[in-house]
């Protein structure tokens, strides 16, 4: 019988979302709940010198106006990321409403609590603020702003290298030396951030669409000086995160604080504009690339120097753009560096494929330039530098399907019909361009726990403190539990999003499937073992005394493989013991640091663009991409992730940019009307697929992540296609019409 794993099941939560039954944090309501609204700084740098809340406080229905002068101090919380022992999720080290300093435009300076949302918003607008400003630091290229080395690192350093770069460049027959720019972007999930806090004595429950309930739990505990178990964080639905809902941002602290002070449940919902101001962004990165190659296309030198920014108060890496440049291709002489500047923006944070999406735009654009300089087919150039080991550490790849992805996608795309010269393909008034790029992305599995419970009516509950940010957790983990336990998938329900559940990591870095899935499988397998032991040791069981290895579990029934008429249903086993349920937990352990393998997923993108010869109008014609991502648990949902990821790449390539007024330090297009995510009409038919890849060395379930791989490399494939169509190399994103006309 076919198992549930590998079936293209529809989303378990789909109907509830399209009918509106799913309740997001902003939909929640509790008896006595009141509403908060923020008064914010119009300037990006300076001090708050006066605050007059008289008028606001006097408005009927206003309960309290929180300011730096009347709130208790919160304890600081560490903001490490990707480091050993990183258990907190504070989005930034700076907490507003604690002193008079202003570091970013839109910084909260007061919080109004009122019995109605409308009153709170109206009152917040009437808090009179007097600020004293200094010109903000907002321009990354400004030479007056000093550079510094990253203060907090990821597990893999951004700086590194091998060989002798100068020698490699000197040896090269052909070189490329160019700077590429990936720009400030915001996550723009549909669901805005929202928080509800309810205190009960010294215990607090916080509802928030965070993708890491336990990180937020520990962060709130730290801020408020409470034991962890006094804080519970709950979330059932996350309306998109793309990284931005990973952390506990300051508004979570302020809402929790407000609820404590007014002694009522308090809800705060951020406006769209506020989500541009205080809940993370993808920072701008200037990538200086140097490539050198022999005449037949083998790389002799590769350098990737990154310059990016952090907030005035932190210096952690959230866009690890250089690491994969050391790993993707065989090249003896490599150097990567990473420098930062403090700008007057709130804390940046990871955004879908935070390192590789910007990083591979630069690297894969440079590779394309190299292919033209060498007069070599861009696919052939990449294959000429393929490698069976990770050149950064010498370990073999657990699997690497790069060449197979190129072969499969090139065939479907019809790449062999490409006329190599820029501007040489045309369709009526439209110039046609074909471009390609490689994809490479870390595949991670991190320590995680899950619990699986079998009830005496045959229902099964699996749970872990993870989230479903629209990615399919509610659907896929039952598939894994069902097969491991031997029950029909319809009988399994998955619960998530409660810090009281078994430990789960932040849902980010495309590691949820591998980590939570492995833990669910471990728990379900253990539960099945316990259940089988109960049967085999039970004199009343038809299976009494049989060898465990000879027993199958199908449809919630154990049976002897050699004599299937001897069977014992799970519910019967529990009934004979008078158990109302049986449960087991399972863990996945950390990968040992002295690991044998490097684990990455690989893929290949192919894009067709059409550029109108007269108006410069740009359209995507077709898109084909292939990926190797290990075992695919649910092909329908995995495919959706690929498509969604590619759509993100299209937005990054063609339209998305948070446009700063550098004089004001303010994002000016902070709305969905002006920050241009792609619309349906921008998206061509996308043929995205997986090549078969079995990789038992990844983790117990053999999966790689699929949430980010669509995005990585796609902007480069499009930019490369634009060059092929027009002969114009656009090195700074997004590729807007004005750049094509210049």
């Amino acid at each position, binding site marked *: 019988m076919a198992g549930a794993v590998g079936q293209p099941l529809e989303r378990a939560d789909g109907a509830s979302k399209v009918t509106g039954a799913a309740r997001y944090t902003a939909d929640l309501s509790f008896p006595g709940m009141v509403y908060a609204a923020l008064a914010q700084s119009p300037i990006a740098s300076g001090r708050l010198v006066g605050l007059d809340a008289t008028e606001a406080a006097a408005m009927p229905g206003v309960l309290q106006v929180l300011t730096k002068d009347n709130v208790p101090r919160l304890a600081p919380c560490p903001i490490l990321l990707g480091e050993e022992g990183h258990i907190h999720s504070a989005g930034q080290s700076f907490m507003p409403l604690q002193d008079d300093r202003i570091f970013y435009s839109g910084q909260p300076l007061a919080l109004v609590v009122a019995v109605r949302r409308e009153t709170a918003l109206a009152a917040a607008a009437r808090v009179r603020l007097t600020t004293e400003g200094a010109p903000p630091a907002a321009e990354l290229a400004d030479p007056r702003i000093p550079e510094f080395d990253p203060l907090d690192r990821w597990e893999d350093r951004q700086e590194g290298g091998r060989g002798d770069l100068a020698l490699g460049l000197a040896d090269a027959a052909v070189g490329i030396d160019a700077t590429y720019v990936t720009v400030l972007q915001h996550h723009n999930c549909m669901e805005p951030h929202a928080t509800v806090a309810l205190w009960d004595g010294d215990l607090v429950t916080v509802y928030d669409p965070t993708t890491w309930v336990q990180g937020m739990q520990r962060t709130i505990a730290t801020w408020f000086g409470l034991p962890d178990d006094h804080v519970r964080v709950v979330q059932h639905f996350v309306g998109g995160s793309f990284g931005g809902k990973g952390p506990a941002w300051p508004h979570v602290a302020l809402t929790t604080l407000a609820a404590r002070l007014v002694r009522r449940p308090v809800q705060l919902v951020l406006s769209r504009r506020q989500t541009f101001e205080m809940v993370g962004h993808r920072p701008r990165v200037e990538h200086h690339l140097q490539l050198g190659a022999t005449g037949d296309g083998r790389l002799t030198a590769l350098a990737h120097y990154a310059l990016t920014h952090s907030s005035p108060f932190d210096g952690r890496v959230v866009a690890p753009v250089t690491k994969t440049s050391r790993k993707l291709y065989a090249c003896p002489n490599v150097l990567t560096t990473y420098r930062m500047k403090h700008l007057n923006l709130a804390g940046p944070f990871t955004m879908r494929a935070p390192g590789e999406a910007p990083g591979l735009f630069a690297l894969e654009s440079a590779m394309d330039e190299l292919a033209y300089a060498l007069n070599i087919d861009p696919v052939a150039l990449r294959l000429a530098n393929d490698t069976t080991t990770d050149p950064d550490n010498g370990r073999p790849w657990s699997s690497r399907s790069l060449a197979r992805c190129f072969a499969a996608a090139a065939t479907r795309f019809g790449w062999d019909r490409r006329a190599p010269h820029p501007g040489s393909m045309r369709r009526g008034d439209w110039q046609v361009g074909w471009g390609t790029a490689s994809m490479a992305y870390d595949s991670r599995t991190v320590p995680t726990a899950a619990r699986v419970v079998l009830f005496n009516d045959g229902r099964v509950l699996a749970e872990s403190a993870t989230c479903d940010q629209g990615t399919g957790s509610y659907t896929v983990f039952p598939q894994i539990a069902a097969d491991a336990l031997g029950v029909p998938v319809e009988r399994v329900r998955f619960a998530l999003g409660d810090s009281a559940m078994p430990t789960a990591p932040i849902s980010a870095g495309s590691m949820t499937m591998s980590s939570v899935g492995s833990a669910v499988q471990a728990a379900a397998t253990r539960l099945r073992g316990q259940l089988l032991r109960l049967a085999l040791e039970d004199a009343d069981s038809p299976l009494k005394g049989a060898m465990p290895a000879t027993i199958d579990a199908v449809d919630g029934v154990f049976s002897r493989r050699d004599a299937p008429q001897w069977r014992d249903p799970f519910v019967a086993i529990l009934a004979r013991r008078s158990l109302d349920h049986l449960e087991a937990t399972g863990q996945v352990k950390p990968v040992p640091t002295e690991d044998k393998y490097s684990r990455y997923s690989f893929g290949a993108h192919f894009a067709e663009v059409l550029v109108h010869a*007269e108006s410069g109008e740009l359209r995507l014609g077709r898109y084909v991409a292939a990926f190797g991502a290990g075992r695919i648990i649910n092909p329908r949902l995995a495919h959706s992730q690929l498509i969604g990821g590619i759509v993100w790449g299209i937005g990054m390539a063609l*339209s998305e940019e948070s*446009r700063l*007024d550098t*004089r004001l330090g303010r994002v*000016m297009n902070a709305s969905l009307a002006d920050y241009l995510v792609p619309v349906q009409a*921008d998206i061509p038919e996308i043929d995205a697929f997986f090549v078969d890849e079995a990789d038992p060395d990844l983790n117990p379930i053999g999966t790689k992540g699929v949430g980010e791989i669509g995005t990585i490399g796609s902007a480069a494939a499009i930019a490369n296609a634009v060059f092929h169509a027009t002969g114009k190399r656009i090195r700074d994103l997004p590729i807007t*019409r004005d750049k094509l*006309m210049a």
Partner: protein
Amino acid sequence: MQPFSYSSPADPRVAMAEAAVPGAEVLAGGTDMMQLMKEGQRSPRHVVDINGLPYRGIAVTAEGIRIGALTRLSEAAEDQALRQGWPVVVEALEASASPQVRNLATMGGNLLQRTRCLYFRDWATPCNKRQPGSGCPALDGQNRNNAVFGGSDRCIATHASDLAVALVALDTLVLTEGPNGPRRLPLADLHRLPGDSPQVETVLQPGELITALVIPASAAARRSRYLKLRDRASFEWALVSAAAGIDLDTGGNIREARLAVGGVGTKPWRLPRIEQALIGARLSPEALRPVAELAGEGARPRNGNAFKVELMKRAIVRALLAAGEVT
């Protein structure tokens, strides 16, 4: 949003009287007004909802076509007579906003929608239009969507409506009614240039309501097209747009042309000089381009919108060629 009182009178005279009181605002579809109120750009003390007034419907008349001010954009876009006789209008509507917005937004409200200038829409920045005298950060700031024609050193905000571009090309009349009685004025005269007082956008008097639009019929109106260029394929205002209508002589040359451009002017921007210069021109890129070249005269581009001048010329050529293909 600040607290306000609300009324929805059925009698036009009551509506006009209420709307004339300082601090009152008129609400039609509300697709722009509600945004302005939520984001604090407008804080009316009283809101007069005019949806109960008898200003809805479309009729073909001796003059042309008459469209009530409260007619929804979607209703107008679906009207067969309008599509037959004035296709540029239907195309401008279809290229506007989204189906959901068009179901709510009205023809009158569309002409009076406020600019999309990023600073006008942001409470935290100065803006002469929103806060007279506070300054114009768009002049040297993020002005990609600001105007190159008709600006002053106080304001360079574009008039964002697509519909108005198509209508102004076709000599549309605006019918109004106010405390001082009814009047008919050319759409070209409805909006003012910003000059020293960008906060005053139209010639409408307090309490004066738009009741209907009248678009004259003509051969050029029948043979007309709207071309809209933007940074994404839909759901965005124009970077540059062009509304073109032409009448051809028996030799296939232009006998009469109507031309207006969007995304570039502080009001719907008609190009009468180009219309004149087009008379007798052949419908080919080679013949049209030199004429389109003239459209750049008088442009005052800024750092972020200079590309619009060239883009506009290309849009003009394409829109004229497209109009020539209308049968």
